[in-house]
């Protein structure tokens, strides 16, 4: 006991059982005991039911209800036991200072500074070399961890699988003909041969919209890109790369469901709302002699979200 304890002096041996600290906090311990017993019984019953439900392979909710109900009952009973039937206290514990005496601290510091420092200071050169060696070891051990993880990005992000003359196919691999889409309809296309590849799905995905029956110009310089009103844009949102999957036909807006960026289809897919910073890149199209749609070339700029080298 230290000097700040101005409270009831207590015997070191113990408290009398009559001491109010040792009494249960419940006014009628017997009644509480009964309730706790009931809770325990309920818990046991529910857990047994859980076993039954599990063996009989009943619906998942019955498993959770019995397991959860059982655990909650047992838990509630035990909490009540601790709260109402155990000594109510309050009890006290002294807090001994963590800090050591001045001389202990000095002895510690002396060992670190004088012993360690003395030995290293005398061989500064070796110490420096050791430090460098450990540093190099640390950096070098990162190499297998980091470098073998994946390929260098190189030009990957700058091009897609679209090339001059790629046929536009839908997800089943069927080529798209100019007679396929009515004005106002939309579909997702891939370069032929890539509709089932990861890259085709994730990078090459392109929305094809028919916005009129005539050749259409979305922007200056793109006069020949949309034959017979077929306009194709990269489906990768320029914000974070979600597929721009919603089409507002009346407003001619492509909408990204992720953060609601909107792109004006008739106007070079210029974003007119939301966090997307750039228009969707447009894919220049042409029509072959049988009316099948082809790309004139790859996209003229990287598709999808921004990155440093872009």
């Amino acid at each position: 006991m230290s000097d700040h304890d101005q409270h009831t002096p207590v015997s070191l041996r113990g408290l009398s059982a009559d001491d109010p600290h040792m009494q249960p906090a419940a006014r009628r311990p017997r009644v509480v005991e009964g309730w706790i017993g009931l809770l325990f019984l309920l818990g046991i019953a529910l857990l047994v039911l859980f076993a039954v439900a599990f063996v009989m392979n009943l619906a998942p909710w019955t498993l959770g209800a019995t397991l959860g109900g059982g655990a909650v009952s047992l838990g509630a009973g035990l909490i009540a036991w601790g709260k109402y039937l155990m000594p109510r206290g309050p009890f006290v514990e002294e807090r001994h200072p963590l800090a050591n005496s001045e001389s202990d601290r000095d002895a510690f510091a002396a060992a670190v500074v004088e012993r360690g420092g003395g030995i290293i200071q005398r061989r500064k050169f070796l110490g420096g070399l050791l430090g460098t060696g450990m540093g190099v070891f640390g950096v070098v051990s990162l190499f297998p961890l980091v470098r073998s993880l994946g390929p260098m990005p190189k030009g990957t992000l700058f091009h897609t699988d679209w090339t001059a003359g790629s046929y536009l196919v839908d997800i089943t691999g069927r080529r798209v003909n100019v007679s396929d889409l009515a004005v106002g309809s939309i579909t997702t296309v891939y370069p032929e041969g890539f509709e089932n590849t990861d890259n085709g799905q994730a990078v090459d995905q392109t929305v094809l919209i028919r916005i009129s029956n005539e050749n259409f110009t979305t922007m200056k310089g793109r006069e020949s890109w949309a034959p017979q009103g077929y306009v194709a844009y990269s489906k990768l949102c320029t914000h974070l790369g979600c597929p721009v999957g919603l089409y507002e036909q009346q407003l001619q807006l492509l909408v990204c469901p992720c953060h609601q960026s909107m792109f004006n289809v008739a106007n070079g897919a210029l974003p007119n709302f939301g966090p997307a910073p750039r228009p969707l890149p447009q894919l220049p199209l042409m029509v072959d002699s049988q009316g099948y749609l082809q790309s004139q070339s790859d996209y003229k700029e990287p598709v999808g979200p921004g990155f440093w080298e872009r």
Partner: protein
Amino acid sequence: MSTTSRKATPTSRYGKVGHVLNELDDRLGVAKGGRTFLDKIFPDHWSFMLGEIALYSFMVLMLTGVFLTFYYVPSQTVVTYNGSYLPLFGQHMSEAYASTVNLSFAVRGGLLMRQMHHWAADIFAGAIVVHMARVFFTGAFRKPRELNWTIGTTLLVLAIANGFLGYSLPDDLVSGTGIRIMFSIILSVPLVGTYLAFFLFGGNFPGTDILARFFILHVLVIPLIILGLVGAHLFLLVRQKHTQFPGPGRTETNVVGSPMFPVFMAKTTGFLMFVTGVIALLGAFAQINPIWQFGPYVASRISYAVQPDWYMGFLDGALRIFPAWEFTGFGHTIPLEVTLPAVIFPGILFTAVYAWPAIERRYTGDNELHNLLDRPHNRPKRTAAGVAVTMLLTMLFIASSTDVIANYFKVSLNTVLWAMRILVIVVPLLSYPLAYRIAKEMQGVAGVGKRKVTNVVVRTDDGEYIATPAPVYADDAHHELDPVPVPTFIEGAVETSGDDEAEFETTPGVRRVER
């Protein structure tokens, strides 16, 4: 027991248990420390329970998680589903998705375990946040406990990270979109982003490696780090002892409350069962992440209601309302509309949280040891700062459902967007002075923060009403007992009223008292 001198004889005054303890002490020397540990005092205040919720939901996560690993296959190999869930029959999907669907429908107890795991993850993160708020607003992070604040913050970061990784594993349409967004966020980091993203994913999105990598991080690496940090957290807690609110008999140099054994042990074990049970009930009755409804991830498909788990909401909100400010120049692009809200903002936020104890120490010049807690209203500036940050995060969280709000209130998306942009700035700015004002006012209210005492209103014979404070415990003259050390023995026989009472008398503390 430490009070008996150790003899060569293997017998103990305390029978078999005493004997086992003696044998243990012979080998490990645990008697003294063990006794101190049993006497360790836990303050009786509900807010000390929040950390326990986090701990117990983490235990549920580990147990249910191990169950899930038995069935989940972390593979992106495409398979044709031929399981029991008919709407997906014959569809192509990754093995990961197929195995999660099977886990939900074909494995006995599988759906319950999945839903419990997911609920436990949400509760885990939530409990950490609320626990942290308690520590912040009461100043429990002050010297000597700064290190535990740092560990706790790291635990929150890891909980969020592991939650995201786990959420990604089923490879359904919603979580796959989440991974796509994460790839783009990493890509947005200036200078090294492209390399980071390619290395992490083993190539351009989606690559073939990401689920296997997420899996091992999710089930091994991060849980191990969390486990180690939880251990360190609890070790420091025992070493430094609990803080406590000021009150009768409570000083900077003691701790007042209930002892580890038996009171706290009973309550906390009960609470472990209770938390587990509640998670099981949620798993049974509250559907969460019904991945079979979302369908498998196909990169060119998108689900309309894309919403991450709640702890990622503030990032999603920030991404939604940040203006489209891409920087281009000097031959490079910095997608600031992504980098600022999703990399730099959380970076600043968590740096500030980590640094808060140091910031406050610098500001107040207070380098004292603190074991008594602050009442929030007594530290109006800290409280107001905490409220402002909470409001900022809340507004960002709300901003993650701009589309839902627009639909619900039938207003234009544009209106909601601008409203949120304004609210995100204005609400925190206004809440600071408001919280400061309220805290200051509360300082003047007598009895704030004191334990509430029930008044008993009595009508006297003259018809006058008088209110007298009732005892804290029924039939007890004491309002607050003075704290006493945990006794070694319970002394003295008490008269018993019948034979059936006898058992009570011999069990310390579990004694029937006639009143």
